[in-house]
Protein backbone atom coordinates (compact mmCIF):
# COMPACT_ATOMS: atom_id res chain seq x y z
CA UNK A 1 0.00 0.00 0.00
CA UNK A 2 1.31 3.45 -0.86
CA UNK A 3 1.98 5.54 2.22
CA UNK A 4 0.77 8.66 0.42
CA UNK A 5 -2.89 8.31 1.30
CA UNK A 6 -5.12 11.31 1.71
CA UNK A 7 -8.08 11.49 4.06
CA UNK A 8 -10.29 11.24 0.98
CA UNK A 9 -8.57 8.01 -0.03
CA UNK A 10 -9.04 6.59 3.44
CA UNK A 11 -12.69 7.70 3.55
CA UNK A 12 -13.28 6.09 0.19
CA UNK A 13 -11.86 2.75 1.27
CA UNK A 14 -13.52 2.86 4.69
CA UNK A 15 -16.94 3.54 3.16
CA UNK A 16 -16.39 0.76 0.63
CA UNK A 17 -15.76 -1.62 3.51
CA UNK A 18 -18.80 -0.38 5.46
CA UNK A 19 -20.97 -0.77 2.37
CA UNK A 20 -19.77 -4.34 1.88
CA UNK A 21 -20.42 -5.23 5.50
CA UNK A 22 -23.72 -3.47 6.08
CA UNK A 23 -25.21 -3.35 2.56
CA UNK A 24 -25.81 0.39 3.15
CA UNK A 25 -25.10 2.32 -0.09
CA UNK A 26 -21.80 4.15 0.02
CA UNK A 27 -23.52 7.41 -0.94
CA UNK A 28 -25.27 7.43 2.44
CA UNK A 29 -22.09 6.89 4.42
CA UNK A 30 -21.26 10.53 5.13
CA UNK A 31 -18.38 11.22 7.54
CA UNK A 32 -20.60 12.58 10.29
CA UNK A 33 -23.01 9.63 10.32
CA UNK A 34 -23.33 7.87 13.65
CA UNK A 35 -22.52 4.17 13.37
CA UNK A 36 -25.11 3.04 15.88
CA UNK A 37 -27.86 5.63 15.52
CA UNK A 38 -27.81 6.47 11.80
CA UNK A 39 -26.40 3.24 10.35
CA UNK A 40 -27.75 0.81 13.00
CA UNK A 41 -24.42 -0.98 13.29
CA UNK A 42 -24.70 -3.44 16.18
CA UNK A 43 -21.84 -4.45 18.47
CA UNK A 44 -20.79 -7.56 16.51
CA UNK A 45 -20.91 -5.69 13.22
CA UNK A 46 -18.71 -2.97 14.76
CA UNK A 47 -16.13 -5.61 15.64
CA UNK A 48 -16.43 -7.10 12.15
CA UNK A 49 -15.76 -3.63 10.75
CA UNK A 50 -12.71 -3.27 12.97
CA UNK A 51 -11.36 -6.69 11.97
CA UNK A 52 -11.85 -5.95 8.28
CA UNK A 53 -10.26 -2.52 8.53
CA UNK A 54 -7.24 -3.97 10.29
CA UNK A 55 -6.92 -6.55 7.53
CA UNK A 56 -7.42 -4.05 4.71
CA UNK A 57 -5.06 -1.36 6.01
CA UNK A 58 -2.67 -3.77 7.72
CA UNK A 59 -2.86 -1.89 11.00
CA UNK A 60 -3.34 -2.92 14.61
CA UNK A 61 -6.18 -1.42 16.65
CA UNK A 62 -6.42 -1.84 20.41
CA UNK A 63 -9.79 -2.98 21.75
CA UNK A 64 -10.00 0.19 23.84
CA UNK A 65 -9.91 2.30 20.68
CA UNK A 66 -12.81 0.37 19.18
CA UNK A 67 -15.13 1.50 21.95
CA UNK A 68 -14.42 5.11 21.06
CA UNK A 69 -15.60 4.79 17.45
CA UNK A 70 -18.85 6.69 17.05
CA UNK A 71 -18.90 7.96 13.48
CA UNK A 72 -17.58 7.16 10.03
CA UNK A 73 -15.06 10.00 10.46
CA UNK A 74 -13.82 8.40 13.71
CA UNK A 75 -12.84 5.33 11.69
CA UNK A 76 -11.00 7.48 9.15
CA UNK A 77 -9.15 9.25 11.98
CA UNK A 78 -8.28 5.94 13.59
CA UNK A 79 -6.92 4.53 10.35
CA UNK A 80 -4.83 7.67 9.74
CA UNK A 81 -3.27 7.63 13.21
CA UNK A 82 -2.71 3.87 13.17
CA UNK A 83 -0.97 4.12 9.81
CA UNK A 84 1.27 6.86 11.17
CA UNK A 85 2.04 4.73 14.22
CA UNK A 86 2.86 1.74 12.02
CA UNK A 87 5.07 3.88 9.78
CA UNK A 88 7.03 5.41 12.66
Amino acid at each position, binding site marked *: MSMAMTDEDILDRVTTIIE*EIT*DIPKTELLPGKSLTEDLEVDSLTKI*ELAVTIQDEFDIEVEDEKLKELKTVQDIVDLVRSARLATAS
Partner: protein
Amino acid sequence: MTNNQVNALVTGMGMTTPLGADVESTWRALLAGESRVSILDDEWAADLPVKMACRAYQDPAEVLSGAETRRMDRCQQFALVAARQAWADCGAPDVDPDRFAVVIGTGIGGGLTTIAQYDKIIAHGSRRVSPFTIQMLMPNGAAAAVALELGARGGAHAPMSACASGAEAIALGLALLRSGRADIVLAGGTEACVGQLSIAAFARMGALSERAHEPQAASRPFDTARDGFVLAEGGATIVLERAEHARARGARAYARLAGAGMSCDARDMTNPHSEGQVRAIKEAMATADLGPSDIEYVNAHATGTPAGDGVEARAVIEAVGNHPLVTATKSSTGHMIGGAGAVEAIFTVLSLRDSVIPATRNLDSQAPDIKVNVVTGTPHKAAVNAALSNSFGFGGHNVTLAITTA
Protein backbone atom coordinates in the same frame (compact mmCIF):
# COMPACT_ATOMS: atom_id res chain seq x y z
CA MET B 1 -41.95 -43.51 14.87
CA THR B 2 -45.59 -43.22 15.81
CA ASN B 3 -48.81 -42.72 13.90
CA ASN B 4 -47.98 -43.90 10.40
CA GLN B 5 -51.36 -42.62 9.32
CA VAL B 6 -50.11 -39.04 9.24
CA ASN B 7 -49.70 -38.43 5.55
CA ALA B 8 -46.57 -36.37 4.80
CA LEU B 9 -46.34 -34.75 1.40
CA VAL B 10 -43.34 -33.24 -0.34
CA THR B 11 -44.58 -29.84 -1.49
CA GLY B 12 -41.34 -27.96 -2.17
CA MET B 13 -37.77 -28.72 -3.19
CA GLY B 14 -34.53 -26.78 -3.51
CA MET B 15 -30.90 -27.65 -4.13
CA THR B 16 -27.54 -26.34 -5.16
CA THR B 17 -25.05 -28.99 -6.27
CA PRO B 18 -22.03 -29.56 -8.49
CA LEU B 19 -24.41 -30.38 -11.34
CA GLY B 20 -26.58 -27.27 -11.14
CA ALA B 21 -27.70 -24.21 -9.21
CA ASP B 22 -31.22 -25.53 -8.65
CA VAL B 23 -33.35 -28.67 -8.75
CA GLU B 24 -34.28 -28.72 -12.41
CA SER B 25 -30.84 -27.93 -13.83
CA THR B 26 -29.24 -30.52 -11.54
CA TRP B 27 -31.82 -33.11 -12.60
CA ARG B 28 -31.28 -32.40 -16.30
CA ALA B 29 -27.51 -32.73 -15.91
CA LEU B 30 -27.93 -35.96 -13.94
CA LEU B 31 -30.17 -37.49 -16.59
CA ALA B 32 -27.67 -36.40 -19.23
CA GLY B 33 -25.04 -38.40 -17.33
CA GLU B 34 -22.79 -35.44 -16.64
CA SER B 35 -19.97 -35.27 -14.13
CA ARG B 36 -18.26 -32.13 -12.87
CA VAL B 37 -15.20 -33.43 -11.11
CA SER B 38 -12.50 -30.80 -11.28
CA ILE B 39 -8.81 -30.86 -10.60
CA LEU B 40 -7.93 -28.65 -7.64
CA ASP B 41 -5.27 -26.20 -8.74
CA ASP B 42 -5.44 -24.17 -5.52
CA GLU B 43 -2.17 -23.50 -3.75
CA TRP B 44 -3.43 -25.35 -0.67
CA ALA B 45 -3.98 -28.49 -2.72
CA ALA B 46 -0.40 -28.75 -3.96
CA ASP B 47 0.68 -31.16 -1.24
CA LEU B 48 -2.46 -33.32 -1.23
CA PRO B 49 -2.39 -36.93 -2.37
CA VAL B 50 -5.79 -36.39 -4.04
CA LYS B 51 -6.34 -33.20 -6.00
CA MET B 52 -9.89 -33.52 -7.29
CA ALA B 53 -13.38 -32.70 -6.05
CA CYS B 54 -16.80 -31.62 -7.26
CA ARG B 55 -17.28 -27.97 -6.43
CA ALA B 56 -20.73 -26.38 -6.42
CA TYR B 57 -21.87 -25.32 -9.87
CA GLN B 58 -22.78 -21.89 -8.50
CA ASP B 59 -20.81 -20.08 -5.81
CA PRO B 60 -23.43 -19.06 -3.24
CA ALA B 61 -21.90 -15.56 -3.17
CA GLU B 62 -23.51 -15.04 -6.57
CA VAL B 63 -26.99 -15.14 -5.04
CA LEU B 64 -26.41 -14.02 -1.44
CA SER B 65 -25.62 -10.54 -0.18
CA GLY B 66 -22.11 -9.59 0.91
CA ALA B 67 -23.15 -9.63 4.56
CA GLU B 68 -24.78 -13.06 4.23
CA THR B 69 -21.68 -14.46 2.57
CA ARG B 70 -19.31 -13.05 5.18
CA ARG B 71 -21.37 -14.04 8.20
CA MET B 72 -22.26 -17.58 7.19
CA ASP B 73 -20.03 -20.56 6.68
CA ARG B 74 -20.22 -21.93 3.16
CA CYS B 75 -22.32 -24.89 4.38
CA GLN B 76 -24.83 -22.44 5.84
CA GLN B 77 -24.84 -20.54 2.56
CA PHE B 78 -25.74 -23.69 0.60
CA ALA B 79 -28.52 -24.44 3.09
CA LEU B 80 -29.95 -20.95 2.85
CA VAL B 81 -29.88 -20.99 -0.95
CA ALA B 82 -31.60 -24.40 -1.06
CA ALA B 83 -34.12 -23.37 1.59
CA ARG B 84 -35.12 -20.21 -0.25
CA GLN B 85 -35.70 -22.26 -3.39
CA ALA B 86 -37.74 -24.91 -1.60
CA TRP B 87 -39.83 -22.35 0.26
CA ALA B 88 -40.58 -20.43 -2.94
CA ASP B 89 -41.33 -23.73 -4.70
CA CYS B 90 -43.97 -24.67 -2.12
CA GLY B 91 -45.64 -21.30 -2.60
CA ALA B 92 -44.08 -19.47 0.37
CA PRO B 93 -47.32 -19.86 2.34
CA ASP B 94 -48.32 -17.95 5.45
CA VAL B 95 -48.08 -20.60 8.13
CA ASP B 96 -48.44 -20.69 11.90
CA PRO B 97 -44.79 -20.08 12.86
CA ASP B 98 -45.14 -22.19 15.99
CA ARG B 99 -46.17 -25.18 13.86
CA PHE B 100 -43.31 -24.73 11.38
CA ALA B 101 -39.96 -26.42 12.06
CA VAL B 102 -36.59 -26.67 10.35
CA VAL B 103 -34.27 -29.69 10.37
CA ILE B 104 -30.94 -29.36 8.56
CA GLY B 105 -28.16 -31.85 9.01
CA THR B 106 -24.49 -31.56 8.22
CA GLY B 107 -21.61 -33.96 8.51
CA ILE B 108 -18.84 -31.51 9.30
CA GLY B 109 -20.50 -28.11 9.76
CA GLY B 110 -18.36 -25.00 9.73
CA GLY B 111 -14.99 -26.68 9.34
CA LEU B 112 -13.74 -24.26 6.70
CA THR B 113 -14.53 -21.35 9.02
CA THR B 114 -12.73 -23.00 11.93
CA ILE B 115 -9.60 -23.44 9.87
CA ALA B 116 -9.73 -19.98 8.26
CA GLN B 117 -10.14 -18.22 11.58
CA TYR B 118 -7.43 -20.30 13.22
CA ASP B 119 -5.15 -19.30 10.36
CA LYS B 120 -5.93 -15.66 11.17
CA ILE B 121 -4.94 -16.17 14.80
CA ILE B 122 -1.66 -17.71 13.76
CA ALA B 123 -0.91 -14.99 11.21
CA HIS B 124 -2.22 -11.88 12.96
CA GLY B 125 -3.32 -12.68 16.51
CA SER B 126 -6.68 -13.06 18.20
CA ARG B 127 -7.93 -9.55 17.46
CA ARG B 128 -8.36 -10.44 13.82
CA VAL B 129 -10.86 -13.21 14.54
CA SER B 130 -14.31 -12.52 13.13
CA PRO B 131 -16.95 -11.92 15.81
CA PHE B 132 -19.21 -14.19 13.75
CA THR B 133 -16.87 -17.18 14.03
CA ILE B 134 -18.95 -19.13 16.54
CA GLN B 135 -22.23 -18.80 14.69
CA MET B 136 -20.42 -19.79 11.50
CA LEU B 137 -18.70 -22.89 12.84
CA MET B 138 -21.50 -24.24 15.02
CA PRO B 139 -23.06 -27.28 13.35
CA ASN B 140 -26.59 -26.04 14.10
CA GLY B 141 -25.80 -22.80 12.28
CA ALA B 142 -27.42 -23.85 9.01
CA ALA B 143 -30.68 -24.89 10.70
CA ALA B 144 -30.70 -21.71 12.77
CA ALA B 145 -29.98 -19.45 9.79
CA VAL B 146 -32.82 -21.00 7.81
CA ALA B 147 -35.25 -20.84 10.74
CA LEU B 148 -34.33 -17.20 11.20
CA GLU B 149 -34.86 -16.48 7.52
CA LEU B 150 -38.26 -18.18 7.35
CA GLY B 151 -39.52 -17.40 10.85
CA ALA B 152 -39.87 -21.07 11.79
CA ARG B 153 -40.45 -21.10 15.55
CA GLY B 154 -41.56 -24.70 16.01
CA GLY B 155 -37.97 -25.87 16.41
CA ALA B 156 -34.67 -25.82 14.54
CA HIS B 157 -32.78 -29.09 14.69
CA ALA B 158 -29.42 -30.23 13.36
CA PRO B 159 -28.92 -33.98 13.24
CA MET B 160 -25.34 -35.07 12.69
CA SER B 161 -24.76 -38.52 11.32
CA ALA B 162 -21.93 -37.90 8.87
CA CYS B 163 -22.98 -38.92 5.36
CA ALA B 164 -26.49 -39.84 6.54
CA SER B 165 -27.19 -36.39 8.02
CA GLY B 166 -29.33 -35.06 5.16
CA ALA B 167 -31.51 -38.16 5.12
CA GLU B 168 -31.73 -38.23 8.90
CA ALA B 169 -32.93 -34.61 8.85
CA ILE B 170 -35.74 -35.63 6.50
CA ALA B 171 -36.57 -38.66 8.66
CA LEU B 172 -36.72 -36.43 11.72
CA GLY B 173 -38.90 -34.00 9.77
CA LEU B 174 -41.33 -36.83 9.18
CA ALA B 175 -41.18 -37.68 12.88
CA LEU B 176 -42.07 -34.09 13.77
CA LEU B 177 -45.16 -34.28 11.56
CA ARG B 178 -46.15 -37.72 12.83
CA SER B 179 -45.67 -36.85 16.49
CA GLY B 180 -47.94 -33.84 16.05
CA ARG B 181 -45.26 -31.26 16.83
CA ALA B 182 -45.48 -29.53 13.44
CA ASP B 183 -47.71 -29.12 10.39
CA ILE B 184 -44.93 -28.15 8.02
CA VAL B 185 -41.18 -28.81 8.12
CA LEU B 186 -38.33 -27.67 5.93
CA ALA B 187 -35.71 -30.41 6.09
CA GLY B 188 -32.47 -31.24 4.34
CA GLY B 189 -28.73 -31.36 4.48
CA THR B 190 -25.66 -29.36 3.56
CA GLU B 191 -21.91 -29.68 3.31
CA ALA B 192 -18.97 -27.52 2.35
CA CYS B 193 -15.72 -29.24 3.20
CA VAL B 194 -13.73 -29.13 0.00
CA GLY B 195 -10.53 -28.01 1.70
CA GLN B 196 -7.03 -29.03 2.56
CA LEU B 197 -7.64 -30.72 5.90
CA SER B 198 -10.74 -32.71 4.99
CA ILE B 199 -9.27 -33.98 1.74
CA ALA B 200 -5.99 -34.88 3.46
CA ALA B 201 -7.91 -36.66 6.22
CA PHE B 202 -10.32 -38.57 3.96
CA ALA B 203 -7.38 -39.53 1.78
CA ARG B 204 -5.41 -40.81 4.80
CA MET B 205 -8.33 -43.13 5.54
CA GLY B 206 -8.16 -44.43 2.00
CA ALA B 207 -11.71 -43.22 1.40
CA LEU B 208 -11.03 -41.08 -1.70
CA SER B 209 -10.57 -42.18 -5.27
CA GLU B 210 -7.05 -41.60 -6.57
CA ARG B 211 -8.02 -41.87 -10.22
CA ALA B 212 -6.59 -38.44 -10.98
CA HIS B 213 -5.62 -39.34 -14.54
CA GLU B 214 -9.30 -39.69 -15.37
CA PRO B 215 -11.25 -37.47 -12.93
CA GLN B 216 -14.65 -37.74 -14.66
CA ALA B 217 -14.40 -41.51 -14.26
CA ALA B 218 -13.19 -41.44 -10.66
CA SER B 219 -16.59 -41.80 -9.00
CA ARG B 220 -17.60 -45.32 -10.06
CA PRO B 221 -19.96 -46.97 -7.61
CA PHE B 222 -20.53 -50.70 -8.08
CA ASP B 223 -17.71 -50.96 -10.64
CA THR B 224 -14.91 -53.49 -10.39
CA ALA B 225 -12.35 -50.67 -10.50
CA ARG B 226 -13.97 -48.48 -7.83
CA ASP B 227 -11.34 -47.09 -5.47
CA GLY B 228 -13.12 -44.53 -3.28
CA PHE B 229 -15.42 -41.53 -3.45
CA VAL B 230 -14.95 -38.05 -4.90
CA LEU B 231 -15.62 -35.30 -2.37
CA ALA B 232 -18.34 -32.83 -3.35
CA GLU B 233 -20.15 -29.86 -1.85
CA GLY B 234 -23.73 -28.60 -1.92
CA GLY B 235 -27.05 -28.67 -0.14
CA ALA B 236 -30.69 -29.57 -0.59
CA THR B 237 -33.93 -29.09 1.30
CA ILE B 238 -37.51 -30.23 0.92
CA VAL B 239 -40.75 -28.96 2.37
CA LEU B 240 -42.71 -31.68 4.13
CA GLU B 241 -46.27 -30.99 4.99
CA ARG B 242 -49.19 -32.76 6.61
CA ALA B 243 -51.58 -33.65 3.81
CA GLU B 244 -54.49 -31.81 5.45
CA HIS B 245 -52.36 -28.69 5.76
CA ALA B 246 -51.24 -28.93 2.14
CA ARG B 247 -54.75 -29.56 0.84
CA ALA B 248 -56.22 -26.69 2.83
CA ARG B 249 -53.98 -24.26 1.00
CA GLY B 250 -54.23 -25.99 -2.36
CA ALA B 251 -50.56 -26.96 -2.48
CA ARG B 252 -49.13 -29.16 -5.21
CA ALA B 253 -47.58 -32.40 -3.94
CA TYR B 254 -44.65 -34.00 -5.73
CA ALA B 255 -44.71 -37.20 -3.72
CA ARG B 256 -45.36 -38.66 -0.31
CA LEU B 257 -42.69 -39.36 2.27
CA ALA B 258 -44.31 -42.58 3.32
CA GLY B 259 -41.83 -43.84 5.87
CA ALA B 260 -38.32 -43.71 7.28
CA GLY B 261 -35.99 -46.10 9.01
CA MET B 262 -33.00 -45.28 11.22
CA SER B 263 -30.51 -47.58 12.86
CA CYS B 264 -26.96 -47.75 14.12
CA ASP B 265 -24.57 -50.62 13.43
CA ALA B 266 -22.86 -50.18 16.81
CA ARG B 267 -20.05 -52.36 15.45
CA ASP B 268 -17.34 -50.19 13.94
CA MET B 269 -16.77 -46.47 13.48
CA THR B 270 -16.10 -46.54 9.75
CA ASN B 271 -16.66 -50.05 8.37
CA PRO B 272 -20.33 -50.44 7.44
CA HIS B 273 -22.29 -53.57 8.22
CA SER B 274 -25.26 -54.88 6.29
CA GLU B 275 -27.19 -55.99 9.37
CA GLY B 276 -27.76 -52.40 10.53
CA GLN B 277 -28.60 -51.31 7.00
CA VAL B 278 -31.15 -54.10 6.67
CA ARG B 279 -32.86 -52.93 9.84
CA ALA B 280 -33.09 -49.35 8.54
CA ILE B 281 -34.47 -50.49 5.18
CA LYS B 282 -37.03 -52.77 6.81
CA GLU B 283 -38.16 -50.06 9.20
CA ALA B 284 -38.58 -47.62 6.31
CA MET B 285 -40.82 -50.09 4.49
CA ALA B 286 -42.76 -51.00 7.64
CA THR B 287 -43.46 -47.39 8.58
CA ALA B 288 -44.60 -46.79 4.98
CA ASP B 289 -46.90 -49.83 5.03
CA LEU B 290 -44.94 -51.21 2.10
CA GLY B 291 -43.66 -54.72 1.53
CA PRO B 292 -40.48 -55.66 -0.34
CA SER B 293 -42.46 -56.48 -3.48
CA ASP B 294 -43.82 -52.92 -3.58
CA ILE B 295 -40.34 -51.39 -3.93
CA GLU B 296 -39.52 -50.73 -7.57
CA TYR B 297 -36.43 -48.56 -7.23
CA VAL B 298 -33.62 -47.91 -4.76
CA ASN B 299 -31.43 -44.82 -4.87
CA ALA B 300 -28.35 -46.33 -3.30
CA HIS B 301 -25.95 -44.66 -0.92
CA ALA B 302 -23.14 -46.25 -2.97
CA THR B 303 -20.20 -43.87 -2.77
CA GLY B 304 -17.72 -45.93 -4.75
CA THR B 305 -15.64 -47.26 -1.87
CA PRO B 306 -14.50 -50.86 -2.28
CA ALA B 307 -16.09 -52.01 0.99
CA GLY B 308 -19.23 -49.90 1.22
CA ASP B 309 -20.95 -50.64 -2.08
CA GLY B 310 -20.80 -54.40 -1.62
CA VAL B 311 -22.18 -54.24 1.90
CA GLU B 312 -25.08 -52.09 0.71
CA ALA B 313 -25.84 -54.34 -2.25
CA ARG B 314 -26.09 -57.31 0.12
CA ALA B 315 -28.35 -55.34 2.47
CA VAL B 316 -30.70 -54.35 -0.35
CA ILE B 317 -30.99 -57.96 -1.51
CA GLU B 318 -31.61 -59.23 1.99
CA ALA B 319 -34.17 -56.57 2.92
CA VAL B 320 -35.90 -56.00 -0.42
CA GLY B 321 -34.74 -58.61 -2.92
CA ASN B 322 -33.02 -58.39 -6.29
CA HIS B 323 -36.05 -57.11 -8.22
CA PRO B 324 -35.77 -53.32 -7.68
CA LEU B 325 -33.80 -51.18 -10.06
CA VAL B 326 -30.87 -49.56 -8.28
CA THR B 327 -28.90 -46.48 -9.18
CA ALA B 328 -25.95 -44.65 -7.63
CA THR B 329 -26.25 -40.96 -8.41
CA LYS B 330 -22.98 -40.13 -6.65
CA SER B 331 -21.37 -41.39 -9.84
CA SER B 332 -22.41 -38.00 -11.29
CA THR B 333 -22.63 -35.69 -8.29
CA GLY B 334 -19.71 -36.89 -6.20
CA HIS B 335 -20.28 -37.29 -2.48
CA MET B 336 -21.84 -34.27 -0.77
CA ILE B 337 -21.43 -35.88 2.70
CA GLY B 338 -24.14 -34.28 4.90
CA GLY B 339 -25.89 -32.89 1.84
CA ALA B 340 -26.02 -36.18 -0.04
CA GLY B 341 -29.06 -37.76 1.60
CA ALA B 342 -31.26 -34.74 0.93
CA VAL B 343 -30.05 -34.39 -2.66
CA GLU B 344 -30.78 -38.06 -3.30
CA ALA B 345 -34.20 -37.90 -1.62
CA ILE B 346 -35.07 -35.22 -4.17
CA PHE B 347 -33.69 -37.33 -7.02
CA THR B 348 -35.95 -40.14 -5.82
CA VAL B 349 -38.97 -37.83 -5.76
CA LEU B 350 -38.13 -36.70 -9.30
CA SER B 351 -37.93 -40.29 -10.53
CA LEU B 352 -41.50 -40.76 -9.32
CA ARG B 353 -42.58 -37.44 -10.83
CA ASP B 354 -40.98 -38.00 -14.23
CA SER B 355 -41.08 -41.81 -14.46
CA VAL B 356 -37.38 -42.06 -15.14
CA ILE B 357 -34.45 -43.52 -13.20
CA PRO B 358 -31.02 -41.95 -13.79
CA ALA B 359 -28.23 -44.23 -14.93
CA THR B 360 -25.16 -45.01 -12.85
CA ARG B 361 -22.20 -43.34 -14.55
CA ASN B 362 -18.82 -45.01 -15.00
CA LEU B 363 -20.16 -48.52 -14.51
CA ASP B 364 -18.01 -50.28 -17.09
CA SER B 365 -17.77 -53.61 -15.36
CA GLN B 366 -20.18 -54.41 -12.54
CA ALA B 367 -18.24 -55.94 -9.66
CA PRO B 368 -18.97 -59.59 -8.89
CA ASP B 369 -20.00 -58.73 -5.31
CA ILE B 370 -22.75 -56.42 -6.62
CA LYS B 371 -25.75 -58.63 -7.29
CA VAL B 372 -28.36 -55.87 -7.48
CA ASN B 373 -30.00 -54.72 -10.70
CA VAL B 374 -28.09 -51.51 -11.48
CA VAL B 375 -29.35 -49.02 -14.07
CA THR B 376 -26.49 -48.18 -16.37
CA GLY B 377 -25.90 -46.62 -19.77
CA THR B 378 -28.94 -44.41 -20.25
CA PRO B 379 -31.77 -43.43 -17.90
CA HIS B 380 -34.43 -46.09 -17.53
CA LYS B 381 -37.96 -44.95 -18.32
CA ALA B 382 -40.50 -46.59 -16.04
CA ALA B 383 -43.37 -45.50 -13.85
CA VAL B 384 -42.22 -45.70 -10.24
CA ASN B 385 -44.77 -45.80 -7.45
CA ALA B 386 -42.61 -46.72 -4.47
CA ALA B 387 -38.90 -46.20 -3.95
CA LEU B 388 -36.26 -46.15 -1.25
CA SER B 389 -33.32 -43.81 -0.76
CA ASN B 390 -30.44 -45.10 1.35
CA SER B 391 -27.92 -42.99 3.25
CA PHE B 392 -25.25 -44.42 5.51
CA GLY B 393 -22.58 -42.62 7.48
CA PHE B 394 -19.37 -43.05 9.42
CA GLY B 395 -20.38 -43.90 12.94
CA GLY B 396 -22.56 -46.72 11.72
CA HIS B 397 -25.54 -44.48 10.99
CA ASN B 398 -28.11 -45.93 8.60
CA VAL B 399 -31.12 -44.05 7.26
CA THR B 400 -33.58 -45.15 4.61
CA LEU B 401 -36.43 -43.03 3.29
CA ALA B 402 -39.50 -44.59 1.66
CA ILE B 403 -41.09 -42.38 -0.96
CA THR B 404 -44.31 -43.07 -2.85
CA THR B 405 -46.51 -41.25 -5.30
CA ALA B 406 -48.81 -38.72 -3.63
